[in-house]
């Protein structure tokens, strides 16, 4: 059975249709990368999965727990969220907590794990991303890349069934992108189910098991990275990929005075 199953997800924001019936099924351990132009609904789709932005319609199933977007009890939402982790575009580390506390917070407050044990888990994770020496620093004292690596640790600490990555490298300076993608590759290798919204084509090509192209609130095309990135069938996918690679767009002969 699929780890994550989305059925007919629809959502409007401010009267505009953002998601127009998305169906998606993600297997356990699968790494799914969602590509698409801005406004295509990919971030919104991600946020409907953990109910940060509940969909207007459709059902979400994670690890056997099915929640209907239209009639959901907040206990169900909480239970669903506790099966997911999320890494945000702007890191969103708790500003008033140290690096260590950012990771232990969910463990002690939500999972009620003893403090010492939570610290142990957090330190082990920090070590994996080479930040164990910054454990007592506050987020404001870290670079964007460091903050995002802590963000990944925070999501991992809760041992979620699936981690949602919402453009994790988009807010980073170019030279810091590598360290975050490196951490994400390590997460992917560990076998955790991942759904990643990103513009990093190389990450999609190397790490994804499946690439999804979204536009206009629907899934336009999906398949292996090779299929979607190297030989897209849909014209919209092709146009988007070209624009990412800065290849000349049609019409190719634009002239400037």
């Amino acid at each position: 059975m699929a780890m994550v199953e989305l059925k007919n997800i629809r959502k409007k924001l401010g009267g505009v249709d953002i998601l127009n019936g998305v169906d998606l099924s993600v297997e356990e351990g699968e790494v799914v990368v969602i590509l698409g132009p801005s406004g295509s609904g990919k971030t919104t789709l991600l946020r409907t999965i953990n109910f940060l932005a509940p969909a207007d319609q459709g059902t979400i199933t994670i690890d056997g727990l099915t929640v209907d977007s239209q009639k959901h009890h907040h206990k169900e939402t909480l239970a669903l969220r506790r099966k997911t982790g999320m890494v945000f575009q702007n890191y969103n580390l708790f500003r008033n907590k140290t690096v260590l506390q950012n990771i232990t917070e969910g463990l002690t407050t939500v999972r009620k794990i003893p403090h010492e044990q939570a610290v142990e888990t957090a330190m082990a994770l920090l070590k994996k991303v080479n930040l164990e020496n910054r454990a007592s620093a506050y987020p404001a004292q870290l670079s964007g890349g460091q903050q995002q690596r802590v963000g990944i640790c925070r999501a991992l600490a809760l041992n979620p069934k699936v981690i949602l990555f919402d453009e994790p490298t988009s807010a980073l300076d170019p030279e810091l992108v590598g360290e975050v993608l490196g951490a994400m590759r390590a997460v992917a290798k560990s076998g955790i189910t991942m759904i990643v919204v990103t513009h990093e084509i190389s990450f999609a090509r190397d790490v994804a098991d499946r690439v999804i192209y979204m536009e206009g609130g629907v899934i336009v095309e999906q398949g292996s990275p090779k299929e979607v990135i190297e030989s897209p069938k849909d014209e919209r996918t092709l146009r988007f990929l070209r624009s990412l690679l800065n290849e000349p767009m049609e019409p190719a002969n634009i002239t400037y005075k």
Partner: protein
Amino acid sequence: MNLNVKFMISDIPTVLSALPVTLELTFASLFFAILLAVLFGVCILKKIPVLKQFVIGLNTFIKGVPLIVQLLFCYYALPYVLRAFDGVLGYTYDPKHPSYFGFAVVAFAFNYGAYMTDVVVSSYRAVDKGQLEAAYSVGMSTFQAMWRIVIPQAVVISLPNLSNYFMWLLKATSLASVVNVFELLATARASTAVNYAILEGYLVAAGIYWAVCILAEQILKRINKKMNRYQKTVSAV
């Protein structure tokens, strides 16, 4: 013109003896003002129907009427209110000993509560929305997210503004001298009745207010600095 310096020096302990009343008035008013501000703020932020409009209406009224008028209003009107409660829940109204101190606290609390409502609302809104989302993403309930993540940050954001209101309130309590509260200013004025050294008496009062304010400012500065340590971009290590 020559000041009666000898009297001024001898007057200091007399006026200082009323400082506790001024401080009690300040802190009691501050406590209830913050309580009201939080209650009013929640009504506005949670968009509670009727209550929200009522709070906004009340606050514009309070802000549009001079504080001294509100003090006089409480001084004259509250005894009638208390009389109406005579015999309720074992309360007995004592017309001979009205609580002038209490009336003043009510006036200050509502006046400063109205202004502090804006601080509460704006501080809450100033906390990045992503903080709440991040708290939700690790599975926290709304209560946990508010209590552990959002409110502590809102409090830190509100501190500089609240400190300002505290300083204003400390000085504004002198207005209570008009409504029969024997705080610092009223005591200073009374102490000059013996020799009519009125200017001297007021100068002593001014000096004490000033000294207390400088001290308060320094303390608040330190608290602010300490609470703000996590916003510093350079590590203290």
